[in-house]
């Protein structure tokens, strides 16, 4: 079976695709239209109080790095831009599932987002907030497996536990594909832009990127760095290997590595108890 066929056979078995609340679907559709204004998007988000609260919490968390507090949704939309807001709204919904059943993955995702934002700013890359958002969503495929294929998820977890193999290795054995490929499928299904789908699908294979190479490299590196500090769990406890080509491609050696680690540590301290 080809990889494409495997993905297809898995996604066919996924009965209940985690559904997005209608307001989230409206927002993601709205930000695609070319003549939408920040006020319209802000108004739509504000119509859902729970969502508004979550969006404000997320935009005020340290990985977006705004010094002051952002207290209104319309201010958040203007500051962050439509693409980031779309990611934030999606994250807020997806992570409801994680918060209750996958606490470790939530912490790992938040940590990766902090590390990505810190790296992107240290390198002076453009749109660090979007890179953070891609990192926040990079393991979205794991959420889908956990929610929609619970039996397979448990088998994967048992293999990791019993045989000490990496989570991704076990996924490939049980499902024939890994969470990055499933994440790509889901993020396309949900209409995410390529600037998010590409880092989600290639965070383990940064060398395969032909677009958004910088973003893919940052998310790949952040996903690994954050494991050093034992923040949350990406499924198994080990630090993997960073691809030197990705490290060199964005010029990581320009950064003071100890300083970077310290900044990440202090960012982590600030989100220690962040829940949406």
């Amino acid at each position: 079976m080809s990889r494409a066929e495997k993905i297809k056979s898995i996604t066919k078995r996924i009965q209940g695709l985690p559904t997005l609340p209608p307001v989230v679907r409206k927002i993601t559709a709205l930000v695609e239209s070319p003549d939408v204004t920040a006020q319209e998007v802000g108004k739509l988000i504000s119509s859902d109080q729970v969502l508004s609260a979550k969006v404000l919490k997320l935009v005020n968390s340290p990985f977006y790095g705004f010094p002051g507090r952002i207290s209104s949704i319309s201010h958040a939309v203007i500051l962050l831009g439509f693409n980031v807001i779309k990611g934030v709204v999606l994250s807020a919904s997806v992570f409801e599932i994680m918060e209750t059943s996958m606490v470790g993955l939530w912490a790992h995702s938040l940590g990766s987002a902090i590390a990505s934002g810190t790296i992107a700013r240290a390198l002076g890359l453009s749109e660090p907030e979007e890179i953070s958002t891609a990192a926040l969503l990079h393991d979205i495929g794991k959420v889908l497996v956990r929610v929609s294929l619970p039996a397979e998820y448990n088998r994967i977890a048992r293999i990791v536990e019993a045989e000490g193999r990496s989570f991704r290795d076990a996924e490939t054995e049980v499902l024939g594909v890994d969470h990055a490929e499933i994440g790509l499928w889901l993020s396309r299904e949900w209409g995410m832009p390529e600037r998010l789908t590409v880092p989600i699908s290639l965070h383990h294979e940064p060398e395969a990127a032909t677009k958004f190479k910088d973003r893919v490299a940052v998310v790949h590196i952040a996903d690994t760095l954050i494991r050093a500090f034992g923040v949350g769990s990406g499924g198994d406890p080990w630090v993997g290997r960073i691809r030197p080509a990705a490290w060199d491609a964005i010029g990581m050696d320009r950064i003071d590595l100890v300083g970077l680690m310290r900044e990440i540590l202090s960012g982590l301290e600030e989100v220690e108890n962040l829940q949406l």
Partner: protein
Amino acid sequence: MQKVPITLASPGMVLAKPVMGDKGLPLCAEGTALTEKLIDRLRAMNVPSVTVRGRPLESGAPVKTADQRVREIEERFARVKGDPLMDKILDAAVTAVRQEEAENPALEDGEGAPS
């Protein structure tokens, strides 16, 4: 150093980081001791939490010494040992933890965690 929700802040706690206001301007300097009045004012300004010195709140999780944290970091790197890039990252992570601990000890002297 510990981040404390404003609802759990109490007089006598000392700020380890300045409290920042809406426009990115500091409202209270690092080193300020909290008072009842100050806490009320911060709460009225919707400040969600403050970062204070020491670990005044019992979080339930055992406080780890720098040595314990470093040992755990080394264990997580066990599978990539010998890779030049990963060794460099391990060194940086360990140095960062040591530096942080030296500046802001999580434990006061003689308050060692059970090992």
